[in-house]
């Protein structure tokens, strides 16, 4: 087990290094550096421009810049945003809870509906439930989520007036300090009446939009995994004991069928964050996805570099953890290592 862990960790090191280099180089390749962008500003002198360039180290040879950058990263220094002048790490950490909160809610939404839907479809194979559930799942899987978000806003907010259109909190009526960065928790901590409900209402639409594709993937995966497991000998054994179908399906089959599903869920963190970029843009959700898109527009190199580094590192680490915890649900692997 320990050697396995070491090997997996060793494998991620070159990926990290390459990631550092690639993000750094790619961002240098973006046409128009942030100083160029400011050239149009009125009253800015060439001397001032050169000064700014020097301040940001942009006049250094590119390899020197990279070495400085890598050195900084190793010390937890992700640079300073050109636009806001705040440390990138600090900015990221301020916005990250919003993304995490949204992602967790979306994932929970997807799992709580997707797994039962898949199980029902598999146990009613070929029937009406199976066909309609899987039809819906495929529709969700094919959904352009930016459009889905707009349609939901149109129906739920504009027509029915059920949910707010954007943001995480109604700033006019509620103000409470950010303690954890998670609105659901902060609003409860504030003790303000209605604050929690307000936070929930803000979360509903983004959760549905971000959760739709994972929901479809989980439902389809659960179904096919269940169908495979239901053919297994041990399911036949369970049925041969005269157990009720809910025990055969819900305990004997599901436990085994969930092994690949959990892996899929774990490995979907990357695509979840990709979806978060769109979702956050649509709903003006103040998370890292929206921040990244804005940084590209503002040519905020350090923010982009740091942001992509951080997000990708999180994806790599989560995937690693998924691999390692795989054994927890699969005893055969747990003992083999």
């Amino acid at each position, binding site marked *: 087990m320990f050697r396995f862990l070491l090997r997996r960790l060793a494998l991620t090191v070159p990926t990290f290094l390459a990631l550092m280099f690639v993000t750094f180089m790619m961002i240098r390749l973006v046409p128009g550096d942030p100083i160029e962008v400011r050239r149009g500003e009125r009253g800015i002198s060439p001397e001032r421009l050169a000064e700014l360039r020097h301040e940001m180290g942009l006049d250094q040879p590119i390899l020197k810049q990279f070495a400085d950058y890598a050195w900084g990263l190793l010390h937890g220094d992700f640079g300073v945003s050109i636009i806001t002048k705040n440390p990138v790490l600090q900015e990221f950490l301020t916005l990250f809870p919003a993304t995490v909160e949204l992602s967790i809610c979306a994932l929970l939404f997807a799992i709580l509906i997707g797994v039962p839907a898949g199980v029902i479809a598999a146990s009613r*194979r*070929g029937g009406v439930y199976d066909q309609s559930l899987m039809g819906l799942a495929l529709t969700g899987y094919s959904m352009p989520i930016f459009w889905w978000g707009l349609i939901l806003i149109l129906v739920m907010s504009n027509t029915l007036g059920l949910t707010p259109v954007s943001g995480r909190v109604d700033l006019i009526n509620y103000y409470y300090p950010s303690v954890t960065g998670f609105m659901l928790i902060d609003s409860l901590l504030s003790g303000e009446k209605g604050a929690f409900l307000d936070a929930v209402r803000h979360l509903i639409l983004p959760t549905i939009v971000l959760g739709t594709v994972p929901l479809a993937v989980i439902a389809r995966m659960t179904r096919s995994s269940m169908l495979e497991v239901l*053919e*297994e*000998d*041990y399911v*036949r*054994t*369970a*049925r*041969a*004991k*005269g*157990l*009720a179908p809910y*025990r055969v399906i819900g305990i*004997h089959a599901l*436990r*085994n069928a969930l092994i690949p599903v959990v892996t899929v869920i774990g490995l979907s963190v990357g695509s979840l964050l990709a979806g978060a970029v769109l979702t956050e843009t649509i709903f003006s959700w103040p998370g890292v996805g929206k921040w990244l898109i804005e940084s590209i527009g503002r040519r905020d190199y350090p923010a982009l570099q740091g942001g992509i580094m951080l997000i990708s590192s999180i994806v790599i680490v989560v995937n690693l953890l998924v691999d390692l915890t795989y054994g927890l*649900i*699969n*005893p*055969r692997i747990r*003992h083999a290592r």
Partner: protein
Amino acid sequence: MSLLEIQNLTVEFKTGSGWFRAVDGVSFTVDAREVLAIVGESGSGKSVSMLAVMGLLPWTAKVTADRMHFEGRDLLGMGKAERRKIIGKDIAMIFQEPMSSLNPCFKVGYQLTEALKTHMNMDKAQRNARAVELLRQVGIPAPETRLNSYPHQLSGGMNQRVMIAMAISCNPKLLIADEPTTALDVTIQAQILDLLLKIQRDTGMGLVLITHSMGVVAETAERVSVQYAGQKVEEQPVKGLFKDPHHPYTAALLAALPERAHMKRLPSIPGMVPGQFDRPQGCLFSPRCAYATQLCRTQVPPQQKDLGNALCHYPLKDGVALGHPGKEKAA
């Protein structure tokens, strides 16, 4: 009254290109305290017919029978919930692959006590005590610790013992063993067979032993039913069958036993059991039969009532094919 009584059982599977008949009009009975062996090659439908009794066939299967009674109760007619009260309690089954027949995600103890929880009115302590007793009964050392093992931590022979313990946990009246030794090491096979027979003698249950090995049949069974391509081709008490097989297929199976070979090379039956696409018109065994004539290839053979119900135009008696026109004409 017989324990299990089956008349004219037919099982068909829906496939991409029509219905495939895996079991074709099979009838037999099993009495209490009796060991019935069902013999045949792979693909002869012997497992399928017993799975049909258990109600364990997949949804693509269609089961029909004139009669399928257990202790006089109609298994096909009763509701699913009612049937589940019999399955696992009064009729139990063990399978060919002990390694894959146990759920890899649950401990042996959990799987062992599950049937007790469902069918017997026992509390947790009683169930655990019973589980230990069962494991001891099937000859597993240190049963208390084994309860906390996962199936993959045990050997194939151990797992099959666990399977047997699970099957007999509710004192079944009928035990169906589907090739219980095929997947095991040769050295373990005899142990498992002896264990099964000992339990059968001790408890007085009926035992249906599905096997493809005539050797196993000789050591264990009282009555033998030979199946070929979904049909029962012969049924006899074991002594009579070995002494005077009436169907050419039975004769060929017996001739393939090493103990019986009187040639230098072990005789074999050429060809394979017909599948969905090469089912012959007349007698299903005719393409492989040494005695086959034009009649065999075109006409479905009758059941020879006096000669072990052999399904043959020219049943063998003392090694002679009755009414056979002779070798020359056979070609």
